[in-house]
């Protein structure tokens, strides 16, 4: 928890440099074009591929990812469909320091639901939580870099640090034996706005 506080304390003051609405508005065609996305780890699979879409002046992003965990790492091959929603409160413009456009989104807050190809079993879950469903949440950030000068084509690199409802609840009940950092998982990814 201290690490999170430290990170927020480092990142939040940067918001004074925040500039809004300085990115060229995309054309209608481009606005609705989905962005190919690839993610490594973060609870969505060893590798997950999918599509994302940014809207509300790039403050919101929805993603659909299809992930894969090899049998070696799960006893059986896992396929995971993840629906993810991310909110970016603000961005920083670094165009004035670089020739290419570059934006940093220091903070992202999001949640996702992952659906697994696990067999249907009776379980002790609540009725609205199936045996094959996992709810996750995360904090993170991303960097958006223009591919070529004045091209309006961007590549985003993002990271997420999060957990899921099961591990969080167990941590809450077992503070002596489970460390906070043990419930965290990290994911990194890239999204292509071409």
């Amino acid at each position, binding site marked *: 928890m201290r690490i999170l506080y430290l*990170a927020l304390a480092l990142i939040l003051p940067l918001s004074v440099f925040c500039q809004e609405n300085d990115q060229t508005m995309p054309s209608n065609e481009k606005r609705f074009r989905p962005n190919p996305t690839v993610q490594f780890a*973060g609870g969505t699979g060893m590798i997950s591929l999918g599509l994302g879409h940014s809207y509300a002046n790039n403050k919101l992003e929805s993603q659909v990812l299809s992930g894969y965990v090899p049998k070696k790492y*799960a006893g059986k091959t896992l396929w995971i469909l993840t629906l993810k929603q991310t909110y970016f409160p603000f961005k920083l413009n670094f165009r004035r320091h670089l020739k290419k456009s570059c934006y940093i989104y*220091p903070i992202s807050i999001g949640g996702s639901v992952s659906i697994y190809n696990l067999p249907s*079993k009776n379980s002790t879950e609540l009725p609205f939580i199936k045996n094959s469903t996992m709810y996750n949440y995360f904090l993170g950030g991303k960097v958006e870099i223009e591919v070529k000068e004045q091209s309006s084509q961007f590549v985003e690199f993002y990271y997420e640090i999060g957990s899921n409802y*099961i591990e969080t609840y167990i941590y809450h*009940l077992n503070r*002596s034996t489970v460390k906070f950092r043990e419930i965290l998982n*990290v994911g990194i990814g890239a999204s292509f706005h071409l």
Partner: protein
Amino acid sequence: MPRITACLFIFFVSSCDYFQYSPHAFDLDESQTNLNAKNLLRLESNPADDTIRFVITGDSQLAIDELRDLVESVNSLRDVDFVFIAGDLTQKGTAKEYIWVQRELEELDVPYLAIVGNHDLERNGESLFKTMFGQLDYSFSYGNTKFICLNTNSYIYNNNGNIPDTDWLTQEMEVPEEVENVTIVSHIPPWWAPQFDPDLVPVYTNLLANNQKTLVSIHAHASSFFFGQLFRDDVDYLVVPSIMQDPTTPVDKSYVLAEIVGSVLIHEKVIY
């Protein structure tokens, strides 16, 4: 820019030890696999004397802190040969739950043997249990007693008629002459229908009743302590209290310390 990148990198690196592909994925090292077989090897290296003395507990589930207290209490006992964890080591069968529980159990001074519970089989739990502990049905002999550890979590398999595996149990209950007692250890007791397949209850109880060497059938799952006969067949059933406390009805934290002397079972509820 470099400073921000450095801050983000430090945050990134210091926040977590590793990337997690899924809560159901696992990358266990050698010391975290096949633990029942390893603990049986440890047990074999300590030959039994006239008295087999063992602890039975179960249902740690959400209570890993309480499990640590139990381990400390068991380590303070003398002459314990081994410990049975009679199922529901985890709540949802995720990889980290298994790892957290195993980390605490490793602190036991004596070998421990895990029996699979219904919660352990949720989600990808069956793959995890098999990798970490071994087969769901297994048996071993120690001293004059054969212990048969059985998966009785029928409900998880939608009561498909194959769990518990009564054919395997029938074979296992045929023991050589030198074995004086047969003790069955499983998670769900046979009267706990429909979580124990109702169609298999008479098969199970008849198997136990018709075997002269049946000493006791040990279970967890029901939370509270019980010892007695339920099917009018002279078979004793022992149910051990759970490690996890019910917050609405808190009771003393306890486990069962059992001794087999000859063909007599002596048991004691230990409060810690």
